[in-house]
């Protein structure tokens, strides 16, 4: 696979200096990462061949200063919307992973007309009772996140940086069923794709159906043989269905696979 060069940039929003990485051309695709922080996967590279991918590092994650200001997921979403404004996107696609999936839902609620389509990778907005984010040593965390740890190419997130962001994650993640958010989702008509890996050991894949129950324009796809980090476990499979959905929205259910063997 040809290496796609991601450029680094920063924007200022709500008093935070927010880092992002960017690659590709075309329709913008904004990505909000999971509770571990920003980490590029092969899926980012594959998506950057079809979209202008901007992956943010949300304030409080990675090497950014401790964020003890943001009080709620809605507030974080509003900060990220300002960051998107600074980059200059009017309409854009939005993708959120796990923790970032909940932020993406709030962001879509705040900018309904501007989010063309929403992709939620193993979103953490609705969780089974007792679900706990992965914790422990990098090895223990990897066992919870990946069905195929051998496919992880990037080094693990520095445990100290992960630990630094945990109070923020705990503060913002909210209850396993968030009545306030769920009542709003019923009016969110943004085309939405929810993906769960069949081997997700962090959030039960059965949570996927709840989004579909609640949201008027939601599609559910199971990615076979992937755990919580779908885009790392099966980047090609993930990118194909996500790209197809972003381009065709609900018509992505119509197959374009060709089966002619010889003319």
């Amino acid at each position, binding site marked *: 696979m040809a290496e796609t060069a991601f450029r680094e940039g920063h924007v200022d929003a709500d008093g935070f200096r927010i880092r992002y990485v960017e690659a590709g051309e075309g329709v913008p695709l904004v990505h909000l990462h999971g509770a571990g922080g920003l980490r590029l996967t092969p899926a980012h590279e594959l998506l950057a061949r079809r979209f202008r991918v901007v992956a943010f590092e949300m304030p409080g994650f990675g090497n950014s200063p401790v964020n003890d200001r943001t009080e709620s997921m809605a507030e974080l979403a509003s900060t990220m919307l300002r960051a998107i404004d600074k980059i200059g996107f009017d309409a854009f696609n939005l993708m959120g992973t796990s923790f970032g999936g909940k932020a993406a839902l709030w962001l879509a609620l705040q900018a309904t007309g501007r989010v063309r389509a929403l992709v939620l990778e193993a979103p953490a907005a609705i969780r089974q009772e007792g679900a706990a984010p992965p914790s422990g040593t990098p090895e223990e965390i990897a066992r919870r996140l990946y069905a195929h740890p051998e496919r992880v190419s990037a080094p693990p997130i520095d445990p100290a940086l992960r630990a630094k962001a945990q109070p923020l994650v705990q503060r913002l993640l909210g209850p396993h069923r968030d009545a306030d958010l769920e009542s709003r989702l019923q009016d969110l008509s943004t085309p939405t794709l929810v*993906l769960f890996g*069949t081997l997700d050991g962090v959030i039960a894949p059965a949570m*996927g*159906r709840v989004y*579909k*129950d609640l949201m008027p324009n939601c*599609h*559910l*796809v*199971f*990615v*076979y*043989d992937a755990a919580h980090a779908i885009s790392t476990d*099966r980047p090609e*499979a*993930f990118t*194909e*269905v996500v790209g197809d959905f972003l381009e065709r929205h609900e018509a*992505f*259910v*119509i*197959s374009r*696979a060709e089966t002619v063997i010889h003319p």
Partner: protein
Amino acid sequence: MKVSFFETARYQASKPLPSEWPVPSGVYDPEAGARAYRGMIERLELVEELGFDWVSVSEHHYSPRILTPSPIVSAAFLAAHLKKIKIALLGPIVPQSNPVRVAEEIAMLDTMAQGRLVVGLLRGTSNESLTYDLNPAEARERTDEGMELVLKAWTEPQPFGWQGRHYRYRTISIWPRPLQQPHPPTYALGTSRESCDFAARHHLGCGVSYGSFEGVGKATKYYREQCARYGWQPSPEQIIYRANMLLADTDEEAQEMLRKLPGQAPFSMRPGVRDAMMTLDSRNIAGEPRAPVVSGALPTTFVGSPDTVVEQVRRCRDVVGAGVIDLSLHPPGSSDLEPLMRALELFGKKVLPQIRDI
């Protein structure tokens, strides 16, 4: 012990047929085929009356040996003709089927049969890779993924898409769902580590076949260990052992029948195909490599008089742990029906009453 009769629709040819697989379909006699299916129902009415718990059907192609290429069609036909007995669909060859279709047809049949269905899912015998041009090297992976999709299609209440490795669907939402909820009793069939792992992980039963008690016992032991690892314990009924049985009034007669059995592989392929298949089709018993069954006859593990067979069934329960035996009573492929009917009667009267409490 529960007892299942493995029904193969005995095809009686008027003249000897070529033994090489695939058998040319030009030598098929439509009238003989019609007789085979009529005879099947007559036989199974007796099987039901004798008190067998299940009748099982399987999927095999391109040969008169087992005349049921579509086990779903067989099972539907049986379900319509028989009233009480459970129909064990053992089973669709998953890697060469559309798993969504398999889920739909089983749900439909379970409902039509008033919940009398038992289901086994499997990879299939080596020769069957040739039937629909399945790459044997992909068969295992396609089986695991297909089985998982079947289970998901039965149980997921919302329309969903499946982004698999070998299967891709964007819209799945089956009607009807099975009458037995969440799904009929289901078994992963096979001795392989992969099959046992799958069964243990999904709380399914395990079905093994034709090997010696000790041989298949390795697989069922491994299966039970894996179930324990996943925090549950299978019931005896969750282990099926399919085996050949030769039953006669005396041990001597049964041994004589055994001596007369043709020592030929059930689906004997051309040597070049057989040898290539040996290298491509990887098989194992609980992780220990074994050769695919492409040459040599299947062993007969129950042989003797009723009392001898009862003792063998007892040993099978101890060694294999099976709570269901699925019997090829008088081996399939034999078109000599008279000994089969005698063995059936003998089994119903002299063996069945003695093995209920095993």
